[in-house]
């Protein structure tokens, strides 16, 4: 079922002479899966080689974005966004004048013309190929994806004794440098409603598209080579020398991780996850 926001956005305003009323934009449904191919060993700026064994994140409401304007035959067709005035003038102007975003919390990220609503606990390491559902996408040229973070709770199937409970992300893994190996865990909570805006997603969606979209976490930023664990000195955190650390116990490390995980460079929607 389409959410109200997307259902509204899918209405086309016909502006050519002689064109009256509105029509629905053509759209397709594409499968979305967890794509584990992004999980590769990452070498941090401090020389630690980090391998993740478990990497769970609570996300919700994946959105797919474009510039917001397309052409259908000889008629200029514009996507209408929700929340605009009721008068004909407001409606028409709203077709191309989207909601204001110069205020914090209104980050720009293109127009949303596709979505996968819902709430998911994703294990980027273990759930490769797992279906998240079918996304509804308006025909168009896509160049970005957004999603929101959540805090895990019993409604997500996460029990109170689970380390992820009340958190957004849980990592379990090992870090190796020279002859030293440190096993680590980390739990990170993001503010409710914190959003990833503009994760790469490049696909020209047509009425015949049948792609499978793979949602990935990338421990290494493919553009700049930074890693999610840059700045984390695993040896220094292992004060008792037992080879095991809980990263969240160090506030500085926790803040570094929280900040890194908000960066859209560490996420990707691969339009060819179906092989």
């Amino acid at each position, binding site marked *: 079922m389409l959410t109200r926001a997307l259902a509204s956005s899918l209405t086309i305003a016909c502006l050519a002479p002689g064109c009256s009323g509105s029509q629905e934009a053509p759209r397709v449904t594409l499968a979305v899966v967890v794509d584990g191919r992004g999980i590769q060993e990452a070498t941090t700026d401090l020389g630690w080689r980090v391998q993740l064994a478990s990497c769970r994140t609570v996300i919700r409401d994946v959105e797919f974005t474009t*510039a917001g304007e397309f052409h259908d035959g000889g008629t200029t067709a514009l996507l209408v966004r929700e929340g605009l*005035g009721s008068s004909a003038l*407001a409606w028409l*102007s709203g077709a*191309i*004048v*989207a909601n204001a975003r110069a*205020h*914090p919390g209104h980050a720009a990220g293109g127009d949303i013309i596709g979505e996968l609503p819902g709430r998911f606990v994703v294990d980027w390491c273990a759930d490769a190929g797992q279906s998240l559902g079918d996304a509804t996408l308006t025909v168009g040229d896509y160049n970005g994806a957004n999603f929101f973070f959540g805090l895990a709770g019993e409604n997500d199937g996460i029990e109170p004794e689970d380390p992820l409970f009340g958190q957004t992300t849980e990592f379990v893994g090992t870090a190796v440098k020279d002859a030293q190996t440190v096993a680590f865990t980390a739990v990170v909570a993001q503010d409710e409603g914190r959003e990833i805006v503009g994760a790469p997603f490049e696909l020209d969606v047509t009425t015949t598209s049948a792609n499978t979209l793979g949602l990935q976490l990338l421990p290494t930023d493919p553009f700049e080579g930074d890693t999610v664990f840059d700045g984390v000195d695993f040896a220094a955190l292992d004060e008792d020398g037992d080879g095991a650390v809980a990263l969240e116990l160090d*506030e500085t490390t926790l803040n570094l991780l929280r900040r890194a995980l908000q960066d859209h460079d560490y996420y990707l929607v691969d339009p060819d996850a179906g092989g």
Partner: protein
Amino acid sequence: MRAPSQLAFAAGLVLTASSCGGGEGSYRVTIYGEAYIEEGIPADVFVDGWAITFDEFLIVVGDITLADGAAAIDGWRVFDLAQPSGGDGHELGRVTVPAGTYSALSYRVAPSADATAGNARDDQVTMMRDAGYSLFVAGAATRGAETYSFAWGFTSDTTYAPCEIMVEVTPEQEGASELTIHADHLFYDDLDSSEPNVAFDLVAAADADADGVITQVELAALDITTQARYQVGSRDITDLWGYISAQTATLGHIDGEGHCE
């Protein structure tokens, strides 16, 4: 921000729809910093008990356009929003426009070598032009016996387009819009959250030489990457000066709390 071609098309549509009524009317545009700039930001706004007063709040504003640009206020002007306006703001100008309903206005805050005085003094205008500033804020933060002063110039270039308005203009009824500048955003502790705190503790902590004056250099030397707050999303911002500079792009609003893209 939207691509210029889209905005131009949008504005054209608005003008077409609005010009059905015939005749012309007047449209007045003002700029206002509200009580937070003219009188100060009170301590109860800050989560950490600071209060701010501004001695100067200089802003360079131009490219003010209604509809498709046929209705525009020409030129760039420098205003000192810290000067009292009696709650009315400061007039940017009046233009004659076709009668109708207007739903979009845009403006830009940017450095301009051609800027002239709005209500600012000549020496303030000269300083803004020579330094290439779009925004200059000078003032003090106080909490009990603690006081810090600051004087920061920013070179950011921000286009607020479109700003949402719904203004009817007739030959008998003047239209009006207020460019509203929100100073408290300078002290927001998150670039993305819709509910950020207004805070000053970290800014105060930047005063490395403990002289009571917080400088751009000191702010730039403060690494925010390990802070619990001051989140920046995907932006490549690692220091407090870069953070506050980014926040300057969020100051502009329309008619009080109205938003601009």
